[in-house]
């Protein structure tokens, strides 16, 4: 029968469905990807072959570089609570707007006296190079210790977990500074911490 000869060679495949799926996936990955936040103190971490991932929550990151220490903690509620506790300790009152703004700051490195100014700045201004002097950590004015201590209290209150501490040091940072930070942690009986490193090939 001549009627059966209906097979035509398809010159173009219909790609509409494929395109739909591709864009759906694309949207998903774009939305789940977390944009890299600009860091106030960029550090070049040394690399290691160890492949443990850094915990994502209840983590305080101490960034050490150029002799300065910056502090950051994960979780908005924890940040706000830590700020409140620090405010009580140093007699600084923070308005609800300031708390809200502070909860969006990933890391900072200023003494308590200048914290209000830094909170008032925009993100670009804040992350200018050499703007923030680092958190004081001398024995006379050990604010870093207080920040860690209060962040631990805040994490315990809100998440009911122990705060984990990560040290993110610059590769060129000399050992005594790292040692100072470790000593501050050890004074609070934090004997277990993570060192943030980059990835290195197996056959190093």
């Amino acid at each position, binding site marked *: 029968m001549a009627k059966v000869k209906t097979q035509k060679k398809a010159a173009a495949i219909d790609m509409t469905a494929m395109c739909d799926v591709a864009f759906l996936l694309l949207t998903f990955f774009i939305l789940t990807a977390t944009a890299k936040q600009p860091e106030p103190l960029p550090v070049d971490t040394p690399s290691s072959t160890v492949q*443990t991932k850094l915990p994502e929550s209840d983590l305080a990151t101490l960034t050490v570089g150029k002799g300065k220490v910056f502090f950051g903690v994960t979780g908005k509620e924890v940040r706000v609570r830590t700020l409140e506790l620090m405010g009580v300790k140093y007699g600084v009152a923070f308005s609800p707007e300031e708390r809200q703004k502070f909860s969006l700051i990933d890391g900072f490195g200023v003494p308590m006296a200048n914290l209000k100014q830094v909170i008032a700045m925009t993100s670009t201004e804040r992350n200018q190079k050499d703007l923030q002097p680092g958190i004081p950590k001398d024995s006379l004015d050990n604010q870093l210790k207080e920040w860690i201590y209060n962040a631990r209290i805040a994490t315990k209150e809100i998440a009911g977990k122990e705060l984990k501490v990560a040290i993110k040091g610059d590769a060129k940072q000399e050992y005594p500074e790292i040692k100072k930070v470790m000593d501050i942690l050890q004074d609070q009986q934090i004997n277990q911490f993570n060192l943030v490193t980059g990835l290195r090939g197996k056959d190093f």
Partner: protein
Amino acid sequence: MAELNTGDGGGKKGDGKVRSKKGNSKVDLTAMVDLAFLLITFFMLTTSLSKPQSMDLGMPDKDPDPTKNTTIDVADNRSMTILLGDNDQVKWYMGQFATPLEGPEQVVYGKEGIRKELLSKMTSVPQVTGDPKKGLIVIIKPSKKSTYKNLVDILDEMAICKVPTYAIVDITKEEVDLLEKPE
């Protein structure tokens, strides 16, 4: 392939023959799909790779009373001390500083240097002690001039060589002198 019909070819009324252009309803999506998949690949790879790596480090409990100096006696033939100096200098010795069983010897970081020594000690120490549980103990002593990178490198060597016991200890004056002494 993707064509857009612009204009009707004059749009002469009454002339039925000119209306022969069919609307090209199919747009070629190949390039679009290519681009979409390229972006998908990019986002997939970056989301999983951007998570920072980390290294666990446990330190011994600090004694709040510094006068109560509790020293732990370690068998000389099991303890290896690694001194980290400036300019990526590494020296190691076995046993005690005053009476070293081996060394002090200067080595470099990496596969050909300190790792060779560590691996050979990892096999020789249990043989000497005669007990597989009594393995090597490494004492890491970073000097003031050493960098954070040196420390991470050495800790990484510990992880690579699977050294069972290691500790970071303060350096002594004599050992600083040894590091500063030219070869």
